[in-house]
């Protein structure tokens, strides 16, 4: 496997990701889980940087960390279950789910191994990221762009409607 040297950075980042991911799925305190999620998302942004997707990394931080994670924290605060700090956060399916996920991971690895798409480009991407993305948004991905706008609008309205104070 000829691979451009991922380097130490990659390994550090991947450890961070994995550990925080595990924290997300297993901590008792939701708030701590949310914070772990933030860490994870930051680390993922770092991975993007490694993969020469700068705009995406910025967008990740802005959107995911800055909005989604905050939103999640808001929701956590709004729905505090006083007792939830005391009970286990994993339900009765834990064993089976664990087994299943392990198997899934194994199968995935196996499949990755089997896939012979190793067309590794020794050089990097040939684009300047930001302008290229802007150009794509306006040409090839015009439709998805517009649709996504509508989608966001719908989500906005939907959220407002759903979370409105009850009448009567």
């Amino acid at each position: 496997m000829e691979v451009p040297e991922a380097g130490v950075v990659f390994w550090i980042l991947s450890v961070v990701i994995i550990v925080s991911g595990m924290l997300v799925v297993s901590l008792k305190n939701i708030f701590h889980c949310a914070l772990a999620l933030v860490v994870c998302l930051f680390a993922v942004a770092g991975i993007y940087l490694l993969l020469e997707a700068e705009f995406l990394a910025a967008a990740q931080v802005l959107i995911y960390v800055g909005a989604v994670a905050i939103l999640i924290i808001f929701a956590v605060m709004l729905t505090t279950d006083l007792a939830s700090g005391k009970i286990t956060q994993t339900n009765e399916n834990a064993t089976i789910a664990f087994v299943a996920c392990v198997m899934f991971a194994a199968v995935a690895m196996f499949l990755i191994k089997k896939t012979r798409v190793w067309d590794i480009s020794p050089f990097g991407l040939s684009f300047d990221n930001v302008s290229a993305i802007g150009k794509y948004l306006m040409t090839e991905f015009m439709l998805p762009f517009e649709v996504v706008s509508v989608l966001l609008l719908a989500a906005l309205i939907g959220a407002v409607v759903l979370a409105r104070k009850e009448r009567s």
Partner: protein
Amino acid sequence: MFPYLALSAVLFSIGLFGVLTRRNVIGILMSLELMFNAANINFVAFNRFVATDGLVGQMFAIFIVVVAAAEAVVGLSIVLLIYRNWRGIGTDNIHVMKW
């Protein structure tokens, strides 16, 4: 590329585990975000190493991010509704559709 894909797979599995086991609905949503991110990593890795004369992978990843955001919004407002109705958001209690 293999490490990136491996990372993506592992992160996905972790997120999957969380979806299947978290008692808290918000916890499920957070694990779901992990899965989205794992997919994103996959897309971007392939874009970088396999299809280098285009940014389709990244575009995809951007759209995933946007849609995930919208979905998180709606999901959380649903969570609010659940909280209002059941006075709690433990998945243990939300099994109305059992036999």
